[in-house]
């Protein structure tokens, strides 16, 4: 114990004595940690942003439907209807964690304007709820849906141009609920675009009352829950699944199960980024190793003197590794502070990003440094510095005393 303390004191003195060399190593470690923090923090920010915008784009946090609706609903929509009135839905509406509950009714049919008739896929929604639930539907012309105008529909831009309609035109929608034929007249209230051009080429939305009239039905196909905080998703989901009574006969799906696009983007982009992050980590480790190697090897003469005075080889080895650990920790701490300050500054200024596919506007990215990232970076750099000191320390400590002394010139 006493020995270790003495060693530590000696290490500190050695580092101070070799001021310039220590500084060089400190800079290598510190800069490495700061760089790693910024890179990882930037990616973290992008992932969080991607998650939130996916949830708010269309999915919501939790979707409630009849079991099997997601897979087979399109073939036989009438068999998967949810009731019009439900105590569960009322209860959810007043839950403090829930921001909104929207009902949706899916249908398809033919849209006709003048001589043109083309098929569409449509969705009946509650206009006041969807403002928060469907941010990915960017209105490019006209106005969004409103509950006050049940005959006003919004059309995908591609669908509208194929149909040859503009805002204000009247379109007849035809559908065949249960074998019969049914039609309503709607007015084009606005045009929207989404991530997918193919979706825009065939999709439209209208208030759910009109959709029910067209499909001669009541109820909805899905209830979409938007929570105030994404972190509550699992808790709310578990509660819903644990309920009995009315909850039976319902299927609950969290956003993570539904967001195929998001999941795959994260998987792919995550792997791509990992590759670059790996390169960054290798550069950091190599640069720490390089610096450590140089600064230790320069002190061969000093080691020779120590050996000649009778200091054991193991002790010298331990001394250098301890120095590596000390400088690694100090550099990592300094780097973490610098990285955090830089991250805060960059987030305040913002990194302007171009619009993602399907979006009209770009956004401003920032850097999110989580405690986990910080610990990872510090641990990596300190470990790299310690391990990097092993090899040169081993080499100088094995040096023949005379040769080592000769380095003193």
């Amino acid at each position: 114990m006493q020995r270790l303390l003495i060693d530590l004191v000696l290490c500190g003195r050695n580092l101070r004595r070799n001021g310039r060399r220590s500084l060089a190593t400190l800079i290598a470690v510190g800069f490495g940690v700061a760089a790693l923090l910024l890179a990882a923090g930037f990616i973290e920010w992008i992932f969080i942003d991607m998650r939130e915008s996916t949830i708010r784009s269309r999915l919501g946090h939790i979707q409630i439907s009849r079991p099997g609706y997601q897979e087979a609903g399109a073939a036989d929509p009438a068999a998967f209807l949810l009731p019009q009135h439900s105590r569960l839905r009322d209860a959810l509406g007043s839950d403090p964690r829930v921001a909104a509950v929207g009902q949706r009714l899916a249908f398809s049919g033919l849209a006709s304007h003048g001589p043109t008739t083309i098929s569409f896929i449509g969705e009946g929604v509650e206009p006041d709820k969807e403002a928060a639930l469907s941010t990915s539907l960017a209105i490019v012309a006209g106005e969004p849906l409103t509950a006050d105008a049940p005959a006003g529909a919004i059309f995908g831009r591609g669908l509208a141009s194929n149909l040859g309609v503009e805002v204000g035109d009247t379109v007849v929608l035809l559908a065949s609920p249960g074998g019969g034929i049914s039609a309503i007249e709607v007015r084009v209230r606005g045009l929207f675009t989404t991530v997918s051009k193919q979706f825009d080429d065939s999709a439209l939305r209208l208030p759910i009352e009109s959709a029910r009239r067209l499909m001669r039905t009541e109820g909805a196909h899905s209830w979409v829950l938007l929570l105030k905080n994404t972190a509550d998703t699992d808790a709310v989901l578990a509660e819903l699944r644990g309920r009995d009574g009315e909850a039976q006969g319902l299927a609950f799906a969290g956003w993570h199960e539904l967001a195929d696009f998001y999941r795959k983007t994260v998987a792919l982009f995550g792997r791509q980024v990992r590759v670059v992050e790996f390169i960054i980590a290798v550069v950091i480790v190599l640069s720490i190793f390089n610096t450590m190697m140089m600064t230790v090897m320069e002190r061969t003469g000093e080691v020779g003197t120590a050996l000649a005075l009778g200091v054991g080889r193991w002790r010298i080895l331990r001394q250098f590794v301890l120095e590596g650990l000390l400088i690694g920790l100090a550099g990592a701490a300094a780097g973490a502070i610098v990285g955090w300050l830089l991250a805060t500054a960059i987030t305040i200024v913002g990194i302007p990003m171009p619009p993602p596919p399907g979006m009209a506007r770009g956004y401003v990215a920032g850097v999110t440094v989580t405690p986990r990232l910080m610990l990872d970076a510090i641990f990596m750099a300190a470990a790299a510095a310690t391990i990097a000191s092993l090899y040169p320390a081993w080499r100088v400590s094995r040096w023949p005393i005379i040769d080592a002394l000769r380095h003193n010139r």
Partner: protein
Amino acid sequence: MNALFVMPGLAARNLLRHRRRSAMALAAVAFGVVALILTGGFVRDVFVQLGEAIIRSQTGHIQVSRSGFAERGARAPEQFLIEATSDLRERVEQRGDVEAVMARLGFSGLLNNGRTDMAIVGEGIEPGREAKLGSYLRITAGRQLTDADEFGILVGQGLATAMRLAPGAQVTLLANTADGAMNTLDVEVVGVFQSFSKDFDARAVRVPLAAAQRLLDMSGYHLLVVHLADTASSETSTAALRGALDPARYDVRPWYEISDFYAKTVDLYDRQFGVLRLVVLLLVLLAVANSVNIAVAERTGEFGTMMALGNRRSEIASLIVAEGALIGLIGGALGVVAGMLLAQLISAIGIPMPPPPNSDLGYMARIRVVPAEVALALGVAMVAALTASVLPALRISRLKIVDALRQNA
């Protein structure tokens, strides 16, 4: 003037004399160059793979159609027909840079499985040619269309799940003919396919061109899809084809104009990876500067001796800078060679990547060595090594000879 010739020789001798120090500085430069080449090449590959995937599964390299087809085609497809008697196909086919052309006839309508209708977007294709070129279109059940299938149909995966279709199922296609009448065609499902896009798969079907012509009661086609021998020549080939065809009658569009998704994704990725690459760049700059700086600083005593012998400070300063330049040059060259070899090696093994969004097919990432990236890497290494030697060179010019000599201790 004389100094100009002597200097490189002296600098080289110095580097040889301090073998270990030079080796470390060289290693730092070489690592840096390798890291930059690998990062740049990897990001490049991400873009290339994305482009190839879109070309192979959706757009082809160039599409030729009647002017205005893209905007208004779905409303009145019969007005944008390229007659079967037109010599367009032969003219395009004869061009040297063209590998293959195929005709497509688009239609939209309904698909009926006996229980329900779904809106679909269909394409009449030439099975033999498409099978050869559409390598990203994977068949998940059943088989590809062949030229022998007169009334076969391929359905997208999403559509097959929704309508519970398996190979062998009988379905009916409904569509409007050119004169407005409703026409039906009974076809048999031969296979289920999966493309790059899930949205596409959820509503896409493919039938032989002849079947589509029969359904729509028209001859000819809408689109001529051109595959080039080399993706890199897309731009020049498009320009050449535009020059050869009457612009008032034909639209010639390259794949990167057709796919909005590609352009926007590349923009966004470019920025996201740009941030990471900036981090790598800064890291390399600092690592190189750090190593070169230590190597020079350790030799203060030597410079003291030179000054004591009557060498001018400016001579010593230029010697140091010349050494820096040499280190940058040699280390850079080593790095370029190592980077290219590593890139080859990694490409041969491949980095397994998860499926891109909208797809279920993973792919192997490679590293593409781009001349511009190599030049950038070399430039960064040179600049870093030079800048790193300028600072100590300036310091030497302020050093007292006796102080410097004392460092010889």
